[in-house]
């Protein structure tokens, strides 16, 4: 019996419920309490930067920012072509339309949390004093403005949330576009004043980043003519002022050579005003959500890897072949003097695959009078040129026979067919879907393998050349063409071929150059008011002003858009630029043949639809919206 009592006694001891038993212990999980520490606030501020990666996170990269414009059209892969053609799948349920909204509001909530908590924190290191707190505060307000600016350009008016989320919030009202711009400007002005010109941590926002975006915001607001963005008469002064502040900062400068910008080993330099940061550490390229890697390297590439002698390699990239340049993008360049197109495109591919090197056949050799002893010999070897995309124009004399005689594959923009006697018969175009020059600005050899989608390069969100173009546009819109041209020509001068600069053979074969000419083309690049003169001349012809664009002021704006295309081709600004200048329909219908063919681009497309998920979940007066209310709340036409 004794033993039994013992057991009962033990059991009774086990019965004792200690209150602590049900307490939840935080071990490997952090809660908001962490933000009561200085490290917590620093980590919160860092997290505010992460959503910057969204822009190049997935296919929204080009869908939202480069498709459906004058400079790029669709290539072989068709998944998201409705963004290019403005098809009805571009609707309120489209995933990127929703994703941008979700990403940015999530980012804004981080910023709001930080903005509310930074003043309260008692720090011991960086946040020990007001200066440190002010810097961090300015960073998060800069970022909040950036996220709103990115959204207001896509969606128009939207709910302005400037406080951290507490509990479940369901009732939101759209703010007007002018109110959103006012809030953005207020944040950016604070940031421009409070941020240092240089940050110890490269990648954090600087005053120059704030100035650049402030200039761009003023320019965007002030560009409105029929649109209502709350534009003020002083907007262009403000835009010019802040752009100049950025340009004149000792921390900024244009790189001497346009090609240096796209050297993947040169991602940090004075021209980069603000960039989404990436590196090759795979562990930092993952995360939940849609954008934690830079995928921009995928989309602008065309299919080189099924060509004879070519295989897919990391240096040439994984060709997703989503976009290819329009004719406008080629023709708007003065290729004789302007080096930018050739420095932007990847046109020559070196053989890297022995097994698919083609062999000469007798009929081929006979067709151009080649040496028949070469029959069944390889046309080229590893390390030789295997594939060329040849950018020329209609005045070319290149023939199909000449192309055959080269041995390597040539896709020429224009070439002549010849008859049996060698006489030219018909001018053909050789660029086509999947087979057009690739943009090499984003090519990323740091990826782990040729198929790796996780890009590692910083994505330049703002660079000083654009600041110049913002300044130029602002001055020009004020009527100060002289200053405008000064800013502009800084960019055009850099774009020229410089003295003693070696050029490719294409330059003298197809661009009008002379072999051995090492003179600078800078003088020829300097634009004058003739370029946008009301009277037509050689310059205005090359600038391809759309029909009806005749006044000097209008032409100036289109000239700036042309210059932005030349300088910023494929840099994910174009859709915003065309919407900003209210030229989306005019220019896209003028230059994008896909859009012409589809014929569906309409006024409503200057805004993206408000996400259906928002319309269905938002409450008004304690109730979800009715179908009619949702229709009213939606952007018109969707």
């Amino acid at each position: 019996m004794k033993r039994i009592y013992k057991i009962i006694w033990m059991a009774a001891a086990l019965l004792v419920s200690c209150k602590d038993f049900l307490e939840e212990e935080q071990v490997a999980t952090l809660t908001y309490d962490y933000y009561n520490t200085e490290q917590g606030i620093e980590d919160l501020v860092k997290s505010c930067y992460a959503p910057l990666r969204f822009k190049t996170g997935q296919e929204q990269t080009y869908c939202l920012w480069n498709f459906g414009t004058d400079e790029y059209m669709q290539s072989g892969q068709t998944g998201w072509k409705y963004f290019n053609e403005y098809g009805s799948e571009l609707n309120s349920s489209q995933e990127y339309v929703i994703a941008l909204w979700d990403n940015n509001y999530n980012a804004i909530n981080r910023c709001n949390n930080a903005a509310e908590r930074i003043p309260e924190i008692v720090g011991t290191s960086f946040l020990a004093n007001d200066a440190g707190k002010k810097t961090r505060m300015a960073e998060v307000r800069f970022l909040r403005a950036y996220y709103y600016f990115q959204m207001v350009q896509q969606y128009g008016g939207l709910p302005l949330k400037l406080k951290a989320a507490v509990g479940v919030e369901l009732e939101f009202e759209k703010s007007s576009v002018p109110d959103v711009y006012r809030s953005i400007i207020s944040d950016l002005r604070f940031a421009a004043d409070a941020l240092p010109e240089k940050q110890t941590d490269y990648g954090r926002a600087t005053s120059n980043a704030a100035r650049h975006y402030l200039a761009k915001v003023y320019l965007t607001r002030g560009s409105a003519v029929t649109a209502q963005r709350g534009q003020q008469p002083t907007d262009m002064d403000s835009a010019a002022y802040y752009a100049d502040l950025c340009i004149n900062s000792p921390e900024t400068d244009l790189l001497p050579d346009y090609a240096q910008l796209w050297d993947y080993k040169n991602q940090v330099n004075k021209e980069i005003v603000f960039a989404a940061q990436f590196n090759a550490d795979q562990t930092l390229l993952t995360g939940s959500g849609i954008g934690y890697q830079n995928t921009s390297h995928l989309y602008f590439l065309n299919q080189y890897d099924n060509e004879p002698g070519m295989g897919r390699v990391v240096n040439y990239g994984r060709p997703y072949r989503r976009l290819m340049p329009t004719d406008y993008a080629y023709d708007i360049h003065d290729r004789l003097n302007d080096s930018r197109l050739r420095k932007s495109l990847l046109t020559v591919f070196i053989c890297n695959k022995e097994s698919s090197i083609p062999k000469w056949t007798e009929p081929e050799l006979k067709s151009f009078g080649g040496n028949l002893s070469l029959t069944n010999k390889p046309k080229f070897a590893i390390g030789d040129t295997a594939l060329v995309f040849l950018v020329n124009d209609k005045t070319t004399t290149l023939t199909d026979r000449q192309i055959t005689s080269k041995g390597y594959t040539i896709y020429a923009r224009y070439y002549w067919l010849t008859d049996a006697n060698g006489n030219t018969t018909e001018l053909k175009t050789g660029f086509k879907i999947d087979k057009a020059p690739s943009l090499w600005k984003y090519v990323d050899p740091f990826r782990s393998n040729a198929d790796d989608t996780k890009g590692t390069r910083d994505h330049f969100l703002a660079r000083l050349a654009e600041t110049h173009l913002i300044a130029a546009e602002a001055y020009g819109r004020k009527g100060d063409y002289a200053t405008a041209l000064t800013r502009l020509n800084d960019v055009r001068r850099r774009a020229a071929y410089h003295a003693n600069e070696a050029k490719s053979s294409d330059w003298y074969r197809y661009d009008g150059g002379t072999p051995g000419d090492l003179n600078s083309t800078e003088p020829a690049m300097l634009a004058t008011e003739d370029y946008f003169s009301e009277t037509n001349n050689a310059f205005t012809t090359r600038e391809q002003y759309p029909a009806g664009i005749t006044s000097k002021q209008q032409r100036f704006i289109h000239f700036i858009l042309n210059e932005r295309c030349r300088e910023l081709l494929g840099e994910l600004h174009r859709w915003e630029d065309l919407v900003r200048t209210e030229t989306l329909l005019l220019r896209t219908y003028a230059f994008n043949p896909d859009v012409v063919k589809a014929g569906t681009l309409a006024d409503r497309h200057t805004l993206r639809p408000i996400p259906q998920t928002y319309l269905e979940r938002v409450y008004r007066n304690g109730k979800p919206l009715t179908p009619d209310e949702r229709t009213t709340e939606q952007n018109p036409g969707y």
Partner: protein
Amino acid sequence: MKRILLPNPVRLLPAAIMLLLTAALGSYARVPQQRTIQGRIVSAEDNQGFPGVNVVVKGTTNGTVTDVDGRYSVEIPSDDAILVFSSIGYATQELVAGKRSTIDLALEPDVKSLSEVVVIGYGTAKKSDITGSVASVGAEQIQAFPVQNVTQALQGRAAGVDVNIGNFRPGEAPTIRVRGNRSLKAGNDPLYVLDGIPLAQGSSITEINPQDIESMEILKDASATAIYGSRGANGVVLITSKKGKEGRARISYDASFGFEKPLRKMEMFNGAEFAELRRNAYRTTGNYSTAYPNPKDDFTLFGTDPFAWENIAAAYDWVDKPNRIAREVDGVPVYDPSKIPTTDWQDMVLRTALNQNHQVSVSGGTDKIHTLFSVGYLNQEGIQRTQDFERYTVRVNFDYKVNDILTIGASTNASFSVQNYGADMYAKAVGQVPFAVPFDPQGNYIRLPGGDDKIINPLRDDQLIFNERRSTRFLGSFFAELNLAKGLRYRMNFGPDYTYYRNGEFQASTSSERAGTSYGRYLENQRFSWVLENLLFYDRSFGDHSIGVTLLQSSSAQRQEGSDITAQNLPYDSQKWYALETTYNGKVDAFNTDYTRFQLMSWMGRVNYGYRDKYLLTLTGRYDGSSVLAPGNKWAFFPSAALAWKLQQEQFLSNATFINELKLRVGYGITGNAAVSPYTVNGTLTNTNYVFNETPAKGYAPSSIPTPALGWEKTAQINAGIDFGFFNDRITGTVDAYIANTNDLLMDRAIPTISGFSSVSANVGKTRNKGIEITISTVNINAPSGISWSTDLTFTKNKEEIIELYGAKNDDVGNRWFIGQPINTYYDYKFAGIWQSNETEAIQRYKENGTTIVPGTIKIVDKDNNYKLNAEDYMILGSNVPDWSGGITNRVGYKGFELSCFVFIRQGQGLYNRARVPTLAGRYPDRKINYWTPDNPSNEYPIANRAKEFPEYYTALYYKDASFVKIKNITLSYTFPTELISPAKVRSLNVYVTALNPFLFTNYDLLDPESLGDPRGSTSALNGLSTKSLVFGVRLGL
């Protein structure tokens, strides 16, 4: 009761053979002492003559039936003969004839079926005394046909228990829903209780060998489950393992071997049809020049892969093949599509899979000690190459009666399993171009058959892709019980449950998943949970009153930790995931470790009261506290009450002799659910990745909104039921009807993302489940000739609906929750056919409103008739919740042979199916469907169009009715007669052959609807292709 009847036919056939032999040899043999015995059988209840009683000489066919007075007369071979007296509903009696010439007998009613003991929460009860809704499935049913895991055996066996196979991949467990979905957020898996110990949350029972199981009871209504309080909300499955019995040691060996094949495959376009589809897709965009096939365009479309091109080229009659000039008639190239070969890619990744299952158990005991020891081995190949599953189980059960006061015991289960999860070969095989070939004529592997860089030949993946999951689990239930005083017992249970799980993945650089670099992953997870219970029982009877009291205090905790590492670019393939540090990248790609722990504490009391064995009352109350909820909301109380009335005990029914049992039950109870993830109520942070100065700048961002008000989800359920047995229990059954109202439904509620979050855990509203469940067993024939036929039938109808959201009757479109509809409701565009060429007027009106449609595209219902198609045209398109489901089992027995057939039915369920939705872009192969062309104005599927990766509004094609009837098994078994086997010291021997899932009847046009229906119906699980199999088995008892 069929258990009682079975032995008769079992013995008869071999006995007949022996008899024949005896007769044949009779002239040589000594004439036996044959004589006659007679007598009269009466019913013990009324002492009246009992007609129709079977009287058989055991081991022979010699027998008779009593006459109207209960008299009989039968020949016996010798004094040793044993007479067997049997009648349905009465206890069978066996008597040795001896020297007697007259045997009179009173047959007692067989109360066994009513006094059958079933397991309920924290104890057992006589089946006749159950007050709640409990379904019981015995060992015989569980082992009626071979299954790999316990849950499969439940399908269609118990009304109200919906078992959804979902995935036929070896080693995967089906999902179980008891009386429908109650909740989404909080999980709908029932609680599993093994030998009294509630298993860890979210744990499966695949590790338990079905052959170790004595019985499974499913507690369905709240009055039964409330005893498990917060964990009983989704029903409770009580599993009782086999125990040793007193007496001679018993050894049994069970084995089965099976051959498995796909039940249904995908029907794809053949080579010529797909080639034509591709041409049509290009014709739509104007990229194919002729209405008939021509070699020039064909070469552009099909010429990338020279071997695929050869197959297309075979259709032409060549004049000059290298220059692609074909013979023409009237300017049209001669083309014979029947000459284009088709590669059967599906067959190349499928196989006839072999399964085997062995179990040996030894059991026995004395009056003090009972013990059982069993080992089991299961080896199951998948029909898809690379999939297989192997499981070893060991069970040791014992109990030891130390003295009159103390009993201790344990039941332990250890298992080890290896699942080769497999490469995704089938899904890839159906994505292969049908006219392309996997190997060139020299036998070399072609990586891109058909020449598309996204269509990679998967046929080497079985050598290159590995996904191995090893799982080790130890489960135990240990107890000590003290008899403190008369009727008073104290018991302590301790149940540890430890699982170690490891998942290794490797994809070689040359596999179809990779391009140039290999990939390895090593994930491990260990979970330990324990339950400690203190129980006090008091059971006494005082005159007409019987009382039972159960008191419980319980604490439990669960802790898990894990790690996960992935790396790329590994130097050599043989290392798989065992040397990830050797990566050429110098660093792994990702790594993480994690940890969670949560605790639960409970107090429970139950009182059972019975009056004159007629009226039974059960009252329970449970008080549960959970660590995952916010302070202030941690504790909740769950009461229940149930009443039963045994009508058959009433005087006024005593004349209705056809009634063996008639019991009315009514019960009410409240259960709760707090299955929110730990740590969520305080608002959690998530780690973010960024870079400053090329060095990591990891941050922490909010990942959830603090939800301090989050409370228990509670379900109040009322249940009324009848248990009945009529006509000597030839008809028995149960009917239950219930209404379950869930309040404060815990859900992840989608909210506007303006505040930074897309959803929040919240108590959002009310749902209701109401339903009816019927279980009927009948003995249709039980003839003295040895023929028997019995039928078991289950029927379940459950209606699930949302009653209220956020305190109002408003639909929440944003969450796809609609008042009056189930929680999982499909809401999308509704398919209305295909736009035809003559519908120009409507097409024009849509175009004017900015919606561009053309003939051949999908027509959807324009709900608001505004000639504009947008998200406002979404409609409710049904749900994956079936209208009803049921099962019918028929058993026909004749002299040792038994033929049984089980049919399973689910009707009125929708299926949201993304598996191989037609793309019709001509790039990826499609299922064989009737698509629209100008010459074939199909109204089923749209035009082929290379410019659309998916047809516009294709989501309207997702939703299909997926009702089905399936013959789950047909089994023929033969039990050898004792006479034949006992000389070999064999106690029992049974052999059987089973056809599992042999037939499927459905209008669903894709695969087996059972292999696609995960709870949310959104799976595209081609890798869980359903199977049919033929299994041969033997059960041997020594």
